[in-house]
Every structure is written in C-alpha cells, then in structure tokens.
C-alpha cells in the first residue's frame, strides 16, 4: 500500500457551511510529486473556486515536493485575492518538516483540526 501511495494522489472535496459561510474543504491522500503535481494543482484550483476560504487536509500526504509547495503558496495567494485564505490541516510529520525547511511554513497557516482553523470566522458577518 505504501509503495502504491508513492505515486498516487487521491482527493476528496466537500463544501462546508460554517456560521453562514461556505468553506471549501479538500483532503488529499498519497504523495505530491512530479507525477501527481498536476492533479494536486487541478484539485486545489477547483476547490478554491468553490469558496474564498479553503481548507487543505494534508494529514495523509506522505510527501510534498518543492513544486507542490509552490502550488500551495500560489493557491493561497489566489484565495487571499478573493478575500479568503488557504489553511492547512494537520500536515503529516514529513510534510510539516518539508514546509518548515523550505520556509513555506512562514507563509502558510496550519491547524491541527478543521474547527480550529475556522475559529476566526466566528465573529465575521456572513
């Protein structure tokens, strides 16, 4: 199974309503590398179009290559241009290490749970 996930990326997306606001959630499983980066980009862009606030669950992503980091940062800038944000949910140990090493951690917010990431939407008017 682990070997299969090296070269595959599975995603699941949904739209969540939180305090009157739509939040797009996408969860990935597998690895983001050369072979899967286009699918990662497509799914992020697609999920990002659904709502300005985008949650990206990386808890089951075993690996994130430098292009994958770039894709996340790009999409994060897109969400902000639309008045929202992109936030990461529980990156795996390896992915969080790559995020920190690459400096991307300073530009991407991450949280251990979805509700924690949505906390600051509470006070905002829908």
């Amino acid at each position, binding site marked *: 199974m682990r*070997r299969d996930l*090296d*070269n595959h990326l599975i995603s699941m997306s949904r739209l969540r309503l939180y305090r009157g606001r739509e939040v797009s959630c996408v969860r990935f499983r597998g690895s983001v*590398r*050369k*072979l899967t980066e286009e699918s990662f980009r497509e799914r992020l862009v697609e999920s990002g179009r659904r709502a300005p606030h985008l949650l990206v669950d990386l808890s089951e992503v075993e*690996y994130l*290559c*430098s*292009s994958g*980091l*770039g*894709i996340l*940062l*790009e999409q*994060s*800038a897109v969400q902000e241009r639309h008045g929202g944000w992109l936030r990461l949910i529980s990156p795996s*140990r*390896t992915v*969080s*290490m*790559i995020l*920190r*090493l*690459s*400096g*991307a*951690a*300073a*530009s991407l917010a991450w949280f251990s749970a979805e509700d924690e990431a949505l906390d600051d939407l509470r006070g905002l008017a829908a």
Partner: protein
Amino acid sequence: MSGPGALGRLVTHMREILPSLIRKPEERALALLAVEEAAVNILEHGYQNEAGRPLTIRLFALEDDRFQVTLRDRAPLADVTRIAPGDLKELARRRASRGRGLALMRLLTMTMMHRPRPGGGNDLVLVFDSSHLTRVVEEHFRNAA
C-alpha cells in the same frame, strides 16, 4: 530511462535501498527529497521532458555514516553546483511557485559536485551525512515544540 513513470520507479527503488543507509524515516524522506529534486531538474531542464533518455542513479556507502548518490545523465552539459540557489525565505515571502529545488538540495547535502562525462552528459554527486540529516530533523522538532 526518462519519460512517464521514470520518477516513480526511482522513488520506489530509493525507498527500498535507503533503509540500509539511513535508519530514521524522517531523515530518509529528506535524502529522498534532495535526490528527487535533482532528478526532476535533469528530466525537466536537462532532457526537456523528452522520453527514453538515460538517467542512472548510484548509491555508495562511505565512511562515518556518510553516503553518496550519483545521478548520471546524457543531457547537455549543466553544472548546477555553479548556480546560486534561491533564498528559501524570500521565495516563500513572494509565494513563488518554483525555484526551491536547488536550495533544498544544498541544505540537505554536505557536498554537491559536478563532473562532465566523456562523450557528453553530467555526473552530479550528492554527498549526505547522516549526522547532518539528524541535526536538520532535530532542529525542525525543536522549532516545532
């Protein structure tokens, strides 16, 4: 050979071999990150994504918990060790989509050497030191705490 699936095969083989050289999974992931970034450079820039071109990867265990990975290609001559790597913090601040690969390779290796090959092509030698990778991982967990 370059082309569809080349990187997947490389990753599979590296995953099989690396545990004999590096014990901790986080350190293996970092070594794999550097090698994979080097291989992507060769496939994308050296071969311009052309299929059927040779890419050989050799691993050697060295003394003192060090090991060496050589990436051998027949791409046009390109000495990546002479290219100044991007500043990772600045790239993140600008949210740049590319330009991190070389900087990560430098960060994770002790030495990077380039040798032109007789008849054309490049040998890129990455030397890793397990204790360096350990320090990188420890620093990460210290900062995360």
